[in-house]
């Protein structure tokens, strides 16, 4: 496998992990909205589903993007595909 193919395979795997986490917190948990609402876990005292829609999921997305960017930069560095001065 060429260097570029390996790079793309790793990039694609990272995409799948990122999208899986994204799916859980944007769609997955809301399938169980009514059940979660009854839960005794109450962040800051808010009902659980309510908290996820107004803070939890949103904050997780912010962290997820920065984590994704960091991982992708590592992959690019590993294969020497990071940008250098004078590129672009």
């Amino acid at each position, binding site marked *: 496998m060429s260097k*570029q193919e390996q*790079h*793309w395979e790793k*990039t694609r795997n*990272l*995409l799948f992990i*990122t*999208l899986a986490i*994204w799916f859980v*917190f*944007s*769609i997955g948990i*809301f*399938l*169980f*909205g*009514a059940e979660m*609402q009854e839960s005794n876990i*109450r962040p*800051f*005292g*808010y*009902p659980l*589903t*309510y908290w996820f*829609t*107004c*803070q939890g*999921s*949103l*904050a997780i*997305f*912010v962290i*997820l*993007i*920065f984590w*994704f*960017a960091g991982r*992708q*930069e590592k992959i*690019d560095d590993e*294969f*020497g*595909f*990071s*940008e*250098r001065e004078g*590129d*672009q």
Partner: protein
Amino acid sequence: MIKGKFIDNLPKVYGIYTGGFLVFIILMAIAEQAGMSAKLIGIFFVAFTVLIYALIGWLSRTLQVDAYYVAGRQVPTVFNGMATAADWMSGASFVAMAGGIYFKGYGYMALLVGWTGGYVLVASLLAPYLRKFGCYTVPDFIGTRYGGNLARFSAVIVLTVASFTYVTAQINATGTIASVALDIPFGIAVYVGLASILMCSMLGGMRAVTWTQVAQYIVLIIAYLLPVFWISSKLGAGFFPHFMLADEVARIAELEGQFGFVKNSAADLATVPKGLAGITKAHSSVNATPWAFISLAVCMMAGTASLPHVMMRYFTTPSVRTARRSVGWSLFFIFLLYSSAPMLATLSKLSLIDPTLPTGIIGKTIAEVQAIDWYQNWNQANLMFISDFNGNGTLELNEFFMGGKAVVLATPEIAGLPYVISGLVAAGGMAAAMSTADGLVLAISNALSHDIYYKIINPKAETAKRLIVARVLLVLIGFAGATIAALEIQGILGSVIWAFDFAMSGLFFPLVLGVWWKRANAPGAVAGMLLGLISGTAYLIWVRSGGSGFLGITQLTFGIVGAAVSLVSMIVVSLITAAPDAATQKMVDDVRIPSGKTVLAQK
């Protein structure tokens, strides 16, 4: 050169600007104590901020193509994040979203999840790759990746439909705020709003829009957060509302149980002015089916990743790496406002409906409420209405109606904050609507001038001519938008949601598959864009004209139909026609690695 120095000095420049704005707020507060009228304060706030943006727009004027279309590709990560946040957060986010949550509670909070989750898709699927491509506009990417004028033209059509729907809503929002703050009729205020929007973008294109958007973000975030924190402290709910409103949320649920949701008869509702609504759904309990919630969130997420005015903000960063990080910063700055919207809705609702609070109006006599100053003001603006449906002389929960935009604009006044805060909120709403309208008008006119005029009609046009065409189109589109906005066909929130559905129907899969599926070709992309847009629009028209719809897909989520048709037709047509040539495959390979020259620079 001054320009290079300007980029290095950005933190200092915007630091001074923020300080200056805070001083202005304090001066206005002092003026209010000294007896300046509320009307004058409103005028000062809106006029002063709009003049500053116009000044920035004028200082950023340019005659270079690179600066006009992509701000010279040198906008630093964090500042691009702020500009994107302002570009993104429209009148709908600022003025209408808290209102939607106020009326419909949990069901509408799908918008919060949808309008933030979409950025994960932007960061991972699209933004870095489109930046590496080095295009000026989104149709530029489609046209070059797939090849052929038909693909480019189809992309321009989808872009125009989506962005134009969106921009009318924004001009509507600027008109609403200008008409309330400056006390002029809506029909005229719409054109005042338009003039302010054009001043920011006409001379400097993307460069001017970038630097005004950063300035607008600072105004809008101060204007949104300050009242939320202030009202929360004033109600004794806690100094940091985001972590401390659990008791208030529980109290609203208790009051809702006590009052009940009485359904008004159609005859009664017919007397309520158009566009006003009452509280009909529980605030915090799960009152929407999972599918209703998720389908709305999915449409907003896919729409986010297809809206050209957002995507083109990531064309302005210096590199692929900064484009990626910049998405994270954008979402962080958006998060600051979005996590506050439900808090504002909670505080606003509680201060109105809790009879034990001095501001509460439910349970008071009708005559008492009609005598309140703020009620008279907002009733006059056609944004508030009460009526004694059951004839018992006291106001019930189902007898109080508000316009969606009034929730944010009127809450400071209702909670008894000084008028200076209301002026600040008006300036913030204006900033939010203007910044988005700027981005949208520019996205449309850039696509028409670059992709239609320069790439298809007259490829030999010289720079000066291209930029003149771009500016003429900008003005024309602005006027068309204002004219339609003055008709008030659909509310702000509704039009914005439609825009996401249109963008998702036509552009989501052609963009994503352009990077992630090498086999995708021009006929497939054209089929995907056109069939997606047509089927989505047809479904919308069908449901609007009384059709029953299927699978619980409503007029707010018709993008699901469009995108599904788009995906299937794109794959089928791509597979039955010839694979893209070697040069195109090589181009996709190049897009996938950050290093090296941009794809367009190699050509």
